[in-house]
């Protein structure tokens, strides 16, 4: 528990530094209109966390199908719920950036298409979970669905970019780009760490919540109040 507490304090300090640093410590990156480059400290970590969360959810789903241990299903759901949240955040921030640099909030750039499909897949995943009554079926089906969905992801990576060319600035804004100065890099890397930390903290919260809920449900039925 003490470890937990220190981690939380470290995370708070880190996140506050990222928040202040991103607005006060760094300079604007060259080649971007106005202050718009600062969105990179939020948009990129959010997108990274979303991808990580969905991948983790997939891994937990496979482990669940292998071991049939309810805890892995809980981890898979919590992880995909958080992934969904960060995916929406990444979409909103990306869309703001798109308005500033490309001129419109939404123009079906391959990145925008793929993030929307991700949201649709996980929207369907939650719809499936809420529609199946049997607990065991629910867990199996959602794990199977997320595996099937994962199998279609390579097609997006290879097909969608071929239809149109992406305008996404992942080449110019790459952290390996020597044009970006030290301050920019420092805040950017710390932002990645901070967002990842926040994700794992939220994951453990959600996971413990689900475990308590499960315990509560079990108590409820065994007492048979009326």
């Amino acid at each position, binding site marked *: 528990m003490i470890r937990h507490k220190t981690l939380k304090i470290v995370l708070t300090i880190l996140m506050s530094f990222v928040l202040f640093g991103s607005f006060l410590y760094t300079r604007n990156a060259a080649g971007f209109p106005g202050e718009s480059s600062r969105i990179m400290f939020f948009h990129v970590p959010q997108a990274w966390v979303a991808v990580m969360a969905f991948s983790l959810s997939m891994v937990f789903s496979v482990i669940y*199908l292998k071991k049939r241990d309810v805890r892995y299903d809980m981890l898979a759901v919590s992880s995909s719920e958080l992934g969904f949240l960060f995916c929406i955040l990444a979409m909103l921030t990306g869309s703001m950036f798109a308005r500033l640099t490309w001129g419109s909030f939404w123009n079906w750039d391959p990145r925008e298409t793929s993030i929307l*499909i991700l949201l*649709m*897949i996980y*929207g*369907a995943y939650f*719809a*499936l979970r809420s*529609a*199946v*009554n*049997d607990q065991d*079926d629910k867990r*199996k*089906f959602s*794990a*199977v*669905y997320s*595996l*099937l*969905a994962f*199998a*279609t992801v*390579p*097609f*997006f990576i290879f*097909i*969608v970019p*071929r*239809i149109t060319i992406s305008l996404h600035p992942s080449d110019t804004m790459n952290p390996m780009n020597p044009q970006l100065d030290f301050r920019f890099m420092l805040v950017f890397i710390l932002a990645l760490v901070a967002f990842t930390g926040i994700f794992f903290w939220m994951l453990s919260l959600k996971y413990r919540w689900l475990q308590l809920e499960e315990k509560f449900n079990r108590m409820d039925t065994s007492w048979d109040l009326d």
Partner: protein
Amino acid sequence: MSYLNESFALLKKDIKCELRTRFAANAIFLFAFTTLIVISYSIAPYRIDEPHRPFIYATLLWIILVFSAFSGLSRSFVKEAEAYTEDLLRLSTQPEVVYTGKMLFNTTLLLLLELLIVPVFLLLMNIRVGHAHYLILLLLFGGVGLSATTTMVAAMIARARVKGVLFSALSFPLTFPLLITLIKGTEKSFMEADIVHWDEVRVAVAYIIVIGVLSLFLFPIIWRD
């Protein structure tokens, strides 16, 4: 060999049942014809400018096919559950056979739908097909790919509370990459320009292989109790 024989037996049984009730076929074909007529009435052959025609027509064609398919294919496992024959099927054969048989049946339905709708569509919209062989291959592999995915989804929703809506919601994200490819390829086949690489057909085949193999692994998990 007995594996394929059993799958074909299941296909035969499903066709026989379908001929008795005509439930799925009626739903699919009526849906398809209604949308087809609405579309052709409102954008008769010359409403759209010449250069825009191929991609608009390709998109419309696949919208008609996919949504009418979704309206009927969801029934393939629901009808077993409603007739209380699900457990019998579970006892009499292995899960992979069930998947293959049901997929064959769905493919048959889809190909039949395409056989009826596509010629009428081409006629009503006055489309001159530049590369007929390319279109036929796309329709064939598109039908197989769609039914491979929707069979998995149909098996899952058979045990859910809301069925029809959920089926489309679950199928659409999974089939999206295939649909984009099919529309792109169909647009190409409507045009006169030469087709150099068979990109779309290759993607469709790859999709069928990936989904087919994965489904054979995952279907037993859904099917077994």
